[in-house]
């Protein structure tokens, strides 16, 4: 087989036990959480573009908020909270819609549940700004499960199809009386899609047909696909996963979990690069040699 006795650094690099690799990931992530370092970050072009649309919001503007599931929330939490904070501070109105059941729990973990008096992350800001349910924001529930018909109804004939919120309470007398078509919408924010955005219903029926600005707080997997949609003009801006959220926190001047997580992200990426280098050294220094030696004719001297 061509194996040599004794310690071989290349063999060690090629066959590192996975348990130790995963243990190091925990060390690299938990370490900066316990002992913050404060590595500086730079704000990217996409985040500035995203923020520019938020900054243009005025009091009374109506914003569609498409919820994030728990699967994406942990990744985009910083951008999710920072965006909502900006919307509340601008006194814009929110129409909250979901496509999955847990999106509501995620939203209420941030904005609280007024029925049960359960506070959320932004409840202090909401109390300070007098931002109230049914006056400033309404949760319509899982209406997006209606598929294409739901998107078209929301875009073209809101009043004929939407009569109550997720609890069955009538929305008559709220700010939604002024919403008829997508022309009455100032902005759409997809708070945490599981992939890219642009080809979905809001991109096609709102952004394409009515030119409503469409922003996305996308997870890592969706960044490259969403960039393609930004190039077409359908999507106007995006936050790139946790890093984008941290940049937005920096821009709005409210440091939060995103900025604190950047130390972990930086060290995690350095660790990953180191693993790639070590793995390649191990491959070219041992595995490849071992494969080549296997192909040689027998008769090699064995120690």
């Amino acid at each position, binding site marked *: 087989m061509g194996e040599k006795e004794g310690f071989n650094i290349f063999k060690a690099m090629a066959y590192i036990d*996975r*348990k130790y690799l*995963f243990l190091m*990931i925990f060390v690299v*992530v*938990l370490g900066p*959480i*316990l002992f913050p370092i404060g590595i500086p970050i730079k704000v990217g072009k996409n985040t500035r573009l995203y923020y520019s649309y938020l900054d243009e919001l005025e009091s009374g503007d109506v914003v569609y908020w498409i919820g994030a599931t728990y699967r*994406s*929330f*942990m*990744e985009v*939490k*910083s951008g999710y909270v920072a965006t909502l904070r900006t919307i509340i501070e601008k006194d814009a109105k929110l129409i909250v819609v979901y496509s999955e*059941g*847990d999106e*509501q729990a995620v939203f209420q973990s941030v904005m609280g549940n007024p029925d049960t008096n359960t506070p959320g992350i932004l409840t202090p800001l909401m109390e300070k700004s007098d931002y109230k349910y049914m006056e400033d924001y309404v949760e319509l*529930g*899982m*209406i997006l499960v209606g*598929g*294409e*018909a739901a*998107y*078209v109804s929301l875009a073209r004939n809101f009043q004929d199809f939407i*009569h*109550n919120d*997720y*609890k*069955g309470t009538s929305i008559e007398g709220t700010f939604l009386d002024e919403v008829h078509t997508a022309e009455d919408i100032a902005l759409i924010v997809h708070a945490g899609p599981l992939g890219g955005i*642009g*080809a979905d*219903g809001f*991109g*096609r*029926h709102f952004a*394409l*047909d009515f030119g409503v600005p469409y922003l996305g707080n996308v*997870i*890592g*997997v969706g*960044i*490259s696909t969403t960039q*393609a*949609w930004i*190039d*077409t*003009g*359908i999507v106007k801006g995006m936050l790139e*996963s*946790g*890093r984008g959220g941290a940049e937005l926190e920096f821009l709005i001047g409210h440091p939060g*979990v995103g900025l*604190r*997580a950047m130390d*972990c*992200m930086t060290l*995690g*990426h350095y660790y*990953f690069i180191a693993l790639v280098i070590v793995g390649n050294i191990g491959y070219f220094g041992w595995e490849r040699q071992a494969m080549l030696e296997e192909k040689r004719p027998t008769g090699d001297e064995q120690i």
Partner: protein
Amino acid sequence: MTVPLFEFTATIVGIFCTWSLYTQFFAKPTPFRSIVSNAYIGIGMGMVTVINMWFIYNNGILPLMRGEWWMAIGIVLSALMISRINRKYSYLARLPLAITVGTGLGLGLRTQITTSFIKQVLAMIVPPIVPGDITQSIYNSTNIIVALCLIMFFVYTRELKGPLSHTIRLGAAFLYIGLGTIFAQTFMGRLSMFTGYMQQIMTPEWKIPYTLGIAAIIFGATIVMDRYGLLDKYG
């Protein structure tokens, strides 16, 4: 700092479930992981069922009782979908499925062609050189070259010989670079998700000793069970 009992209990259970699932990295089945993963599926399905039934009640039954009679059509069509569980009557589910698919296609086809095809092609028609903007010029030129090479890579109708064969190799190289980029972005996203959740179970500070303590207990128990061969028996 006093923590409400419900929040404390939920946090402890959440931390226990987290580290139990992370015993996945031990590369052997563990009883902690088995219990929590099965419970997660069951609880998740239960929660989805309750939320969906509540949604149907609030948005279907209540409006029906208020006089919106057309909601009955939706409720009946939805009920027909359940006929799929019975082989004899499963054909009834084709009606609501046909209505849903047909409506979706009819409403969405125009926009899908415009956004996914026409707009994407138009976005590729850019000047290769932008006077005064080197970055954009590089970006545009790269877009055009990579797009052309990738299109050539996927031409299977005839063999491409001579200079065109080089574009195929370039196209393949660009494809690998693109896939590698997507993989790197996926890793970034997963790391971000992992970091976000670790922050969730480590802040505020009162959670730290519980997080680290429960991790030590679970991983310690796993190592001990592995040493005495109990993982194979109880995993």
